[in-house]
């Protein structure tokens, strides 16, 4: 009686440890290996294994094996009759003598007999086969008692739940991976579509070929110089690519006019931001500000822009970015009525219009990005690729940028004092 109680206490200790092991977020393989140790150690079982059932391959694949030798099969094929009988039997141990009625036992009988297996337990969780336990003889040499079988059932249930959870996790991971791939495909399709649209917009205007793509790239540069994250930078690029989508509805002869257009034509052309907004608004963009960028990219901080004459803070930030990128591209490319302007002039223009047309912090970020490239701090040749090497490396550009940035951003005390002293506001002692 006392020995029986001691055995029970020892087995319950192992059961408690098993519960703890299963709930720990350990490596799954290690959990199963420990589980097999705990069953063996709880009842003094000489050898055994834990297998996971693969419903795709209809196989029991060994996850942990102890004392069964190198020649023990690591994968056991099941037939539908085996599966049916497992489900009918549920989570109850089957003596090997009775398990021989199962078709798969007949196939592997010699291996089981050689290793003196005694007990087989199908692991059935929520009416699903998840695995099986194979247990050898006890060290005492005695047969398994009914209470020991109950302990094995209880421990088997824990192991079955662990396998089931692992299967669920694997399925979730598989679905997540599929979703990620699908998302990547959709994203790539979206970008291809955006680029196709940009190309279609630019096709209407032979003089500004590539304009939308360049505005997209310049917007991307500004956003990345502002320190935005990858998705936001991507959003800024898309906003740039699509900012002129409304021009698709403007007559080609107005867009391509080799002269300054008249007031009527100008009114027609100036509708393109609102039309662009109408086109883009119904589309579900991953980046929500894209339609706003199209609508407000001709607004100015001083309220003299169009279509709504908005002031500074009324203008969406993304539209300010696209506005700067758009204007910069207009100044640095040849137009039917105007030749491309030298870089120094363009820098002057941006500085002069900072606070009037352009947001000053965007101008400094953009020019800062240009200077980083010229000084070698940024080895990415983003500006050179868009503007051409000769244009970017014209004499004195780097100096001009340094000077302009210093003037525009008197943020350090030294710079401020130096600037103030130069105009004689106060003396430095």
């Amino acid at each position, binding site marked *: 009686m006392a020995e029986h109680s001691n055995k029970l206490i020892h087995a319950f200790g192992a059961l408690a440890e098993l519960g703890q092991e299963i709930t720990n977020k350990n490596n799954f393989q290690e959990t199963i290996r420990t589980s097999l*140790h705990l069953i063996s150690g709880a009842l*003094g*079982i000489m050898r055994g294994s834990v297998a996971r059932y693969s419903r795709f391959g209809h196989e029991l694949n060994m996850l942990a094996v102890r*004392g069964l030798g190198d020649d023990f099969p690591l994968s056991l094929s099941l037939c539908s009759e085996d599966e049916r009988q497992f489900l009918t039997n549920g989570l109850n141990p089957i003596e090997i003598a009775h398990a021989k009625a199962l078709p798969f036992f007949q196939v592997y009988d010699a291996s089981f007999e050689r290793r003196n297996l005694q007990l087989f337990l199908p692991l059935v969780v929520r009416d699903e086969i998840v695995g099986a336990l194979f247990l050898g003889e006890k060290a005492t040499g005695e047969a398994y008692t009914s209470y020991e079988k109950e302990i094995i059932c209880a421990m088997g249930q824990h192991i079955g739940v662990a396998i089931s959870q692992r299967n669920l996790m694997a399925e979730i991971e598989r679905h997540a991976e599929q979703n990620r791939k699908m998302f990547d495909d959709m994203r790539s399709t979206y970008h291809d579509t955006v680029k196709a649209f940009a190309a279609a917009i630019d096709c209407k205007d032979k003089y500004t070929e590539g304009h939308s793509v360049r505005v997209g790239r310049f917007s991307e540069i500004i956003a990345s110089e502002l320190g935005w994250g990858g998705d936001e930078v991507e959003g800024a690029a898309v906003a740039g690519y699509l900012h002129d989508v409304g021009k698709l509805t403007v007559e080609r002869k107005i867009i391509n006019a080799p002269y300054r257009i008249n007031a009527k034509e100008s009114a027609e052309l100036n509708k393109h931001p609102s039309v662009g907004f109408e086109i883009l608004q119904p589309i579900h963009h991953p980046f929500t500000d894209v339609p706003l960028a199209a609508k407000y990219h001709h607004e100015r901080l001083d309220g003299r822009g169009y279509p709504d004459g908005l002031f500074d803070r009324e203008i969406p930030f993304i539209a300010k970015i696209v506005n700067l990128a758009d204007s910069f591209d207009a100044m640095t490319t040849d137009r039917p009525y105007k030749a491309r302007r030298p870089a120094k002039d363009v820098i002057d223009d941006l500085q002069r219009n900072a606070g009037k047309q352009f947001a000053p912090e965007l101008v400094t970020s953009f020019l800062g990005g240009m200077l980083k490239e010229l000084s070698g701090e940024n080895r990415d040749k983003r500006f050179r690729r868009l503007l051409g090497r000769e244009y970017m490396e014209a004499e004195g550009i780097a100096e001009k940028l340094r000077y302009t940035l210093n003037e525009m951003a008197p943020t350090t005390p030294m710079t401020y004092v130096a600037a103030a002293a130069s105009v004689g506001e106060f003396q430095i002692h």
Partner: protein
Amino acid sequence: MITTSTTLGESSESVSDRSVIFADNYLNKLSGEKIEHECRRRIETGCRELELNFANTEIVNSIGISILLGVIDTASNKGARVVFSEVNDETVELFEMLGLTNHVVIE
């Protein structure tokens, strides 16, 4: 930390080697696996008598039991003898209850 020592037969080649391995205070998974590894290594290198000394061992848990059963099985397959020495009374009771004493000599 496993302390091991080997007592060599003095007179002739026919006297087999006896390896002594000392178990830790608590024989659980961590210390048990170290012992298992060491036992296997000794058996693989030809040791035919393995003494596991439990003088410092107070508790052996279920995983420890399973590991000891593995050592017994490995030794038996290689024709080696396993001896448990200086085992406390409670642990002897546990070994008897679970049948380990059917396979080893307790000294």
